[in-house]
């Protein structure tokens, strides 16, 4: 289990983003609770037209847009595998799949 450093919490300050930030750290740490399924989001660049729907509606903010407006997977470890992006991608450019045990995140390629 990850142990949060109390000093770090203080550093975060009392602003409203603190809780979300600490949650994010929890989920993305390699020691996230055993048994929790992880997912990988693949974006097929050849078909993607950068409409931004996936980034705008992702309930866990896994996908964000870069400077050019193209989506990239910022934090695949936060993905719960709801599949919203895959269902709503007008260009069939996203697929969400369960990560196989022992396989590193697609982002680390």
């Amino acid at each position, binding site marked *: 289990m990850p142990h949060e450093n109390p000093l770090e919490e203080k550093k975060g300050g009392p602003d409203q983003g603190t809780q979300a930030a600490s949650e994010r750290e929890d989920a993305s740490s390699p020691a996230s609770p055993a048994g929790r399924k992880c997912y990988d989001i693949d974006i097929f660049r050849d078909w993607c037209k950068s409409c931004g729907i996936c980034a705008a509606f992702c309930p866990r903010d896994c996908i964000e847009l870069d400077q050019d407006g193209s989506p990239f997977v910022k934090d695949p470890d936060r993905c719960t595998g709801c599949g919203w992006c895959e269902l709503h*991608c*007008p260009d*069939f450019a996203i*697929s969400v799949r369960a990560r196989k045990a022992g396989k590193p995140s697609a982002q680390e390629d």
Partner: protein
Amino acid sequence: MAEDTKLVYKYLRHDKKFPHVWCPGCGNGILLGALIRAIDRTGLEKDEIALVSGIGCSGRLSVYVDFNTVHATHGRALTFATGIKLAKPKLHVIVIMGDGDATSIGGNHFIHAARRNLNLTAIVVNNNIYGMTGGQYSPTTPYGALSTTSLYGNIEQAFSIAELAGMAGASMVARGTVYHASLLDELIEKAILKRGFSVVEVISHCHTQYGRKNKLGGAVEMLRWQKDSAVRLEKARSLSQEEMEGKFTIGVLVDRDLPVYTQEYRKVREAAKKMMARPS
């Protein structure tokens, strides 16, 4: 999930025609996804389906699928579909039309196909405008909305496609949005399996023409509008008229069993055969 992506390989001409021609964020792409998921759920073979489409952005849909397809003339998708269904009643004929295609140029065909109650599935993509031809107002453009042919606001009242189809006598009428994609899968699946004329009105968005002209934002903002304005039928029953102001209901609006044209026609043929066999 990844299973949905596998359907792309099964049902779409992924090696020839993609990426498709629609604008970034277009609802037609989401509808195409919902359509192949619905067809996969029904368990029908690819050869058992004939997909007919009219002219317009949504008309391009037939190009991308690997079924028996016809890209028909403007407004006449239903007439081609009627011919196909009568010649080969075993085929499941699905018709894709736009709002202008179905209710303006093909308006007469639409109401009479509904009245005749032929066993067809009509999917009408309603994006409130003629998108492909340059943003002219269509019969579903709301009152007061701007378009390239209504620069001072549209002075005509809009059609409600679902209500029109219901009044014209369709067996099943449903309305969905591309935002509620899972519901759309269910509605299209039900419509394909329904015996009789079934209409699914799909509320979509044209941010390139309608959204830009009316300052409604891009695809994301227009999808948010769908999310906020669509009310499920079950919930809408408990809301007052004021609360429903500016909103629309989604779900199965009409579902009834009426005599189907092909069955009735068979009766005519049998009666005629008996008449002919009688010694004169």
